[in-house]
């Protein structure tokens, strides 16, 4: 999927994660610790400003460019709040606010903030209104998802450091759309990693005198898993491409389609991974559950399959003419 700079960045992220963030890191994070070493390594790549325009001091990359980075994060179980930082910085820059350094996250006002307790600053959105808060100035209620990732709800008790408005291209649902896109790409990555674990297990675990991966029943299950993983990866990239071409707000249909695909696939993939790894995959000791619990969690964030399917269904029901005309009308034709 990735080419050029995008592939290179993803490769750098994957390498940094492999060096600094293994299963031990995920365990510590789930116990409430902040992964200092991994964060330092990842933050050092200077990726937080990936989506920030160059004239605002960022890298000026597009959504599609960062999908491989998000997938790489997903493969590692997203042990650091890098995706959140990339999203929050992009929102701030779009609203004309200079993004601060350090740990940064974002959420719609009233919703839990990913990694909130670890953040130095958080971006809260009320529609298209963007507010940058010092995390310490908010009153936090700690929470978490079943991936045991910090999802903490802030109460605003002090004025923000800065405020601004998103342009129309980002729209009033930017927090939702950005989260949906990020989680879709991370689901693609987590599925790739869980698939790799399942394939490796199938090739090494022997029963009836041969690796269980030699049994067609197991092969066919893993083939379904691989197909679903590919579908999510393509969907996330295609949605990001639409967002690059038309702006985030006008890509709600594509982002929703990607999130439905990702959410449905996450459930199928997790189920197959556990079936193949059997009892071993259920143990705390084996790393699989860090991925599957995140798959189950991420499909809940940025809108569930049910939420987006309802929206997409209503959208096509209320669009006159054939569905096919609606879908093809959204093709991006390059300017002649």
């Amino acid at each position: 999927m990735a080419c050029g700079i995008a592939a290179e960045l993803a490769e750098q992220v994957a390498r940094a994660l492999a060096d600094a963030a293994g299963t031990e890191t995920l365990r510590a994070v789930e116990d409430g610790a902040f992964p200092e070493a991994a964060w330092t390594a990842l933050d050092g790549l200077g990726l937080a400003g990936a989506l920030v325009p160059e004239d605002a001091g960022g890298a000026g990359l597009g959504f599609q460019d960062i999908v491989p980075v998000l997938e790489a994060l997903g493969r590692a179980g997203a042990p650091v709040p890098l995706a959140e930082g990339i999203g929050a910085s992009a929102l701030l820059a779009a609203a004309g606010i200079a993004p601060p350094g350090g740990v940064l996250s974002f959420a719609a006002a009233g919703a839990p903030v990913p990694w909130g307790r670890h953040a130095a600053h958080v971006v809260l959105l009320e529609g298209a209104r963007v507010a940058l808060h010092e995390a310490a100035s908010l009153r936090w209620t700690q929470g978490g998802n079943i991936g045991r990732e910090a999802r903490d709800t802030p109460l605003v008790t002090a004025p923000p450091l800065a405020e601004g408005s998103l342009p129309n291209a980002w729209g009033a649902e930017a927090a939702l759309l950005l989260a949906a896109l990020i989680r879709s790409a991370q689901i693609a990555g987590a599925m790739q990693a869980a698939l790799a674990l399942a394939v490796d297990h199938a090739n090494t675990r022997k029963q009836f005198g041969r690796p269980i991966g030699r049994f067609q029943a197991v092969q066919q299950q893993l083939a379904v898993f691989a197909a679903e993983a590919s579908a999510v990866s393509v969907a996330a990239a295609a949605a990001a491409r639409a967002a690059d071409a038309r702006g985030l707000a006008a890509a709600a249909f594509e982002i929703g389609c990607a999130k439905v695909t990702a959410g449905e696939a996450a459930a199928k993939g997790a189920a197959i991974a556990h079936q193949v790894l059997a009892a071993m995959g259920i143990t705390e000791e084996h790393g699989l559950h860090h991925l599957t619990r995140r798959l189950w969690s991420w499909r809940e964030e940025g809108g569930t399959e049910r939420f987006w399917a309802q929206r997409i269904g209503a959208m096509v029901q209320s669009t006159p003419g054939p569905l096919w005309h609606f879908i093809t009308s959204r093709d991006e034709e390059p300017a002649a």
Partner: protein
Amino acid sequence: MTGLRFDLRDPPPGAAALRAEVRAFLAEHAPRWSPEVRARSWMGFDRDFTRAVGAKGWIGMCWPREYGGTERSFLERNIVLEEMLAAGAPVGAHWIGDRQSGPLILRLGTEAQRRKFLPRIASGEYAFCIGLSEPDSGSDLASLRTRADKVDGGWRLNGRKIWTTFGHLCDWMIALVRTSPAPEGGSKHQGLSQVLVDLRAPGVTIRPIRDLVGEKGFNEITFDDVLLPEDALVGQEGAGWAQATSELAFERSGPDRYMSAHPLLEAGIEALRGDGAAAGTLGRQVARLWTLRAMSTAVAGMLQEGEDPIRQAALVKDLGNDFEQALPERMRDVMDTDAMPEEMRRMHAYLTQIVPTFSLRGGTREIMRGIIARELGLR
């Protein structure tokens, strides 16, 4: 990580104009198509319509002009295919020639074969079918037993092909046959060749087989000492297996692998406008359709670049077949069949019976998943 890479591509320049042209053409013909015709999709056989498509230059679009093509890109061809399928056009009389037989002849045929067949496929004059399955050879295709033996001036063909779609309506078959015995202890994939068979030649007996819908869709075709000329051979003698399998990425990744039941989805949305309770189910189908289209188009782009994404194609076919096959059931989830408008009900009835074929034709679901499993390193 697997090597299952998909590269997204922009639509070709002029895509919207081409789409509009195809739609205008289809709008002229569509009023004649019954719900059953539209539900048949690319299994609908209509010579007149095919000739009209040929006259527009939309068969063999990517072939050189000297062979009757219009030298359009693979992605432009994809647009025409999508539009035909979306409308439920009866494209069966040229689908196989355009998708498989023509490209094979273009790539591996002799100059004489190209000049004889390609312009006639492109005009809609020649309809092609594919002779693969035999009574004892289905998924284990290489075990086939139909033989072409070298004789003076050509080949003598004996054997039997079965499940040949439209065999009774077509003019030509490209059959995979054995031209020499599999080597002792060697691969049974060796010694197979592809031959052109004139279905009106003496010794060819075609027996239509009624399908479960009550239609004569497929056939058993018996070859009894059929004499084939020397130039019946396509490509290299003995290389038939490699030749036949090298086309699979083209055959398996197109919109015909996820849009076979598309008119039913359109009818469902039309019938359920304003029905909030149905929105979620419809939305899931639309999301899946959108994703499959992105995948299929990515493969089309890779094919255009000269890559051979055979595993990606197997994957698109598997996911696509699952989707199109389930559409009648998903429509039942949101609407009682009795409550469906007449046209939709008839499409639904037809498709309910015929969708099991979607994951059989062109390689079964199990074979597709076996190909993916091999890519994963499991076989």
